[in-house]
């Protein structure tokens, strides 16, 4: 057909002029090459030019756009937003809290025994072989004393058996005897309290040691500096004594404190200077979340709110501005929330000047992902078409040139690959890839491989068909006569003649491969997050909420696919017309 084009062109020039021209006349030499003729015809086709423009724009969009865009394809956009955040939680204290004297400890079993004893109303209990006594200070508040046995005395003979490591002075001995005679169960000697525990005829003399306080009262310090003092045994003891006995003042370490109790049972302790020093209550208020420090003012306000069951209250914060807190009641727990700023992923944000197509479900810029997705969609198309051409030309060329058995066998192979249904096979491969947990990059290659392996047969058929007819032409007989090797004959003389048709077919194929890749990605069989292709971006529309409410996420990639495929089809059509003007579209 190329020969024909040339002759047409020469015939077109008027023969009269031709005679006057010299053989090397520039006008005479200036005959358009076949390639130029094709190009000329192609550029005359309006539809093809439209297609070409579309493709150029799309390529610029995908490959240059990705460089220009200020965002990366996996950049997640977050924003601060005001939301009701958990702030604190409060509950009526039902557990005993322990304040131990310095150096004293209480074992876990002793603590559980205390809980048992207080619930039963007992004031003595035993744990780990030792006896304990609870001395009530007030309601749900006890002083814990441990009884350390120092000796046993037989009541009849007064014979004394001293525990190992203990020494008993004479004075103490006489005090013990005196107590036993008088039948006392408690006595003091030398500022230490002793207790007598009778078991049958034996009396056990125990030294009574105060360990600490078990109380349900919660005492919070107003400032961090005073926390150690407030949590100390001495302070606590005096404070609790004053609290439970409705006294208005108490003294610790020579300092005088005054106590002010309101009708709810909450008390505020003021120091000598009249400053608020500590607060006592039966309600525990704890921060609900990390990095929250509750001020005592908040705690007191929260307690008031809990007692009054108000749903909201305000407390001034550190800078003095009023902050509103809301209270929710869940069973016996009280939760406080406040408006706080929080970092949130900006999901499904509508298009704006900084994100022209909005943000997707992961808070990523849709436009940027479209650009990067375009790269993959277009690249997949080109790679697959290239591989298809490579396999197809070799198989088709060999089959067409040699014919007979070679042709028969190769064509059966082509039939086999051609008959394997694409989508069922792709679904199987997709399922296998899913179950083997293949990385998203490896999936692209697997995808391209499957597309190429199941798609090369058309190329092979076209090449074979063309070669079968070209083989019989005179120029092939000439190559045979001149003794050109077979390889050269196929690839230098036959294939170039098939090329125009192949280029047309490849261009059209590009479009259909882009559709197929998009479809597979849409079905979740192709590309996976975090990589994107146009198809996998539309995949979001599988979510009914995205489809109905966020058209700006799935509509643009669909239009891009449509444009790309239209572009390839227009160009393919134009090329076909340009290569072979006889062939009517």
């Amino acid at each position, binding site marked *: 057909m190329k020969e024909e084009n040339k002759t047409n062109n020469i015939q077109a020039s008027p023969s009269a002029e031709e005679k006057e021209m010299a053989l090397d006349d520039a006008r005479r030499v200036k005959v358009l090459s076949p390639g130029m003729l094709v190009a000329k015809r192609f550029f005359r086709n309006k*539809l093809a030019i439209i297609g070409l423009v579309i493709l150029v724009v799309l390529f610029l969009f995908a490959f240059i756009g990705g460089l220009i865009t200020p965002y990366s394809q996996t950049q997640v956009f977050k924003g601060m937003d005001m939301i009701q955040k958990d702030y604190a939680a409060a509950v009526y204290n039902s557990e005993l809290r322990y304040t131990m004297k310095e150096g004293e400890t209480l074992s876990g079993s002793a603590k559980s025994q205390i809980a048992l004893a207080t619930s039963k109303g007992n004031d003595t209990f035993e744990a780990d072989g030792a006896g304990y006594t609870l001395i009530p200070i007030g309601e749900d508040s006890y002083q814990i004393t441990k009884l350390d046995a120092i000796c046993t005395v037989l009541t009849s003979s007064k014979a004394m058996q001293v525990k190992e490591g203990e020494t008993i002075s004479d004075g103490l001995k006489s005090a013990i005897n005196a107590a036993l005679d008088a039948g006392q169960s408690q006595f003091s000697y030398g500022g230490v309290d002793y207790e007598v525990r009778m078991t049958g005829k034996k009396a056990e003399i125990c030294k009574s040691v105060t360990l600490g306080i078990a109380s349900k009262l919660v005492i919070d310090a107003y400032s961090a500096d005073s926390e150690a003092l407030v949590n100390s045994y001495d302070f606590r003891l005096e404070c609790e004594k004053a609290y439970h006995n409705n006294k208005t003042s108490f003294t610790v370490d020579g300092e005088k404190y005054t106590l002010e109790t309101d009708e709810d049972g909450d008390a505020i302790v003021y120091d000598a200077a009249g400053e608020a020093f500590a607060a006592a209550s039966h309600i525990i208020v704890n921060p609900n979340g990390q990095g929250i420090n509750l001020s005592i003012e908040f705690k007191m306000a929260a307690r008031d709110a809990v007692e009054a069951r108000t749903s909201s209250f305000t407390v001034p914060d550190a800078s003095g501005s009023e902050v509103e807190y809301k209270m929710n009641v869940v069973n016996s727990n009280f939760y406080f929330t406040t408006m706080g700023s929080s970092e949130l992923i900006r999901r499904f944000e509508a298009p704006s000047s900084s994100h022209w197509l909005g943000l997707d479900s992961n808070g990523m810029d849709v436009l940027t992902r479209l650009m990067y997705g375009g790269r993959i969609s277009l690249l997949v198309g080109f790679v697959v078409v290239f591989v298809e051409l490579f396999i197809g030309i070799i198989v088709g060329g060999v089959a067409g040139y040699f014919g007979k058995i070679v042709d028969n066998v190769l064509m*059966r192979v082509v*039939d*086999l690959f051609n*008959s*394997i*249904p*694409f*989508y*069922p*096979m792709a*679904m*199987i*491969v*997709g*399922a*296998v890839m*899913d*179950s*083997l947990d293949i990385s998203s990059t490896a999936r692209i290659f697997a995808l391209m491989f499957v597309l190429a392996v199941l798609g090369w047969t058309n190329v092979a058929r076209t090449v074979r068909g063309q070669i079968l007819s070209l083989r019989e032409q005179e120029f092939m007989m000439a190559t045979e006569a001149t003794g050109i090797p077979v390889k050269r004959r196929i690839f230098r003389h036959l294939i170039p003649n098939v090329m125009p048709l192949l280029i047309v077919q490849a261009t059209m194929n590009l*479009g259909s491969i882009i*559709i197929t890749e*998009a*479809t597979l990605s*849409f*079905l*979740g*069989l192709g590309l996976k997050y975090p990589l994107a292709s146009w*198809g996998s971006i*539309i995949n979001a*529309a599988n979510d*009914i909420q995205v*489809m*109905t409410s966020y*058209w700006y996420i*799935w*509509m643009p990639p*669909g239009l891009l*696919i*449509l444009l790309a*495929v*239209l572009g390839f*089809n*227009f160009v393919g*059509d134009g090329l076909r017309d340009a290569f072979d003007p006889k062939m*009517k*579209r």
Partner: protein
Amino acid sequence: MGKYIIKRILIGIVIVISGALVAYAVIRCLPTSFIENLARQRASNPTSSKTYQEWVTQLTSVYGLDKGILAGFVGWLGDAVRGDFGESWEYGVPVVLKFKQVIGYTIILNVITLFVELLISIPLGIIAAKNQYKKSDYAITVFALMGISLPTFFLAILLKYVFCVKLGWFDMYGVTGRYYNQLDTIGKMLDIGHHLVLPVITLTMLSIGGLMRYTRTNMLEVLNADYIRTARAKGLPEKKVINKHAFRNTLIPLVSYMSYLIPSMFTGSLITETVYQIPGIGYISYLATTKGDIPFAMFYLTFTLILTQVSLLLADIMYAVVDPRVRIN
């Protein structure tokens, strides 16, 4: 002719078997987690007398997973030839039974689509050919290219967005409405029909382009033939020339084109069925295959393989029947 058909059938059988073998080899790459799940389910059933391990062994041998790929395939093939494709793992019923339940929807959907497609694309193709290089021709060509260039799923979503979400004319999913069971027979048919409108439109929009271009090309070829010139020279009305002399001769390639449509009728509606969630063979196999249901996937693949071979054979035979000049050797 008879000899050719027999040869064709034999080759077809070889291709079907090799195609199934390729699929089987790929599908065996799946991990056997499904077997383990199934075994765990059955072992925890109070009426089961076997332990988990016994169930695993039994199920593995039933599905031939303990043998190599080739031996396993021969076992599968032996059962398949006798029509036993095993029990679907996903649906828990024999594969063939499930197929019979769902194939109806696919056939209804595709037959309606085919009629609509023929009614629209052949007249359009003829109009385009008659007015070659005129405005109507360009318009029809661009329209057809648009149809070809639209990805099925995108068109389906677009239609759903416009007609279901914005206009609320149709349900988004499924083939029956909420009150299906309370309707009488006619009501039920209308309900299904109502649900099939959008899928049919989707499938038609996409397939019109190909058939229309094919009609146009063939019509153009026929219109350039000598006998058309003769008919015109005789002074026949243009209508008669087109409808009787030209169109009848384009039927030959059209008939062969149609037989190629048969396999795509069953596999081509896969995406449409999936997007609209119509329980036809496409959607059902999509669900089964993506979950690693080996028996169902193998069945669906073999089914389409056989269908393709049958359609190729049919195309050859039809060609010979329609055009007495064709004598295959």
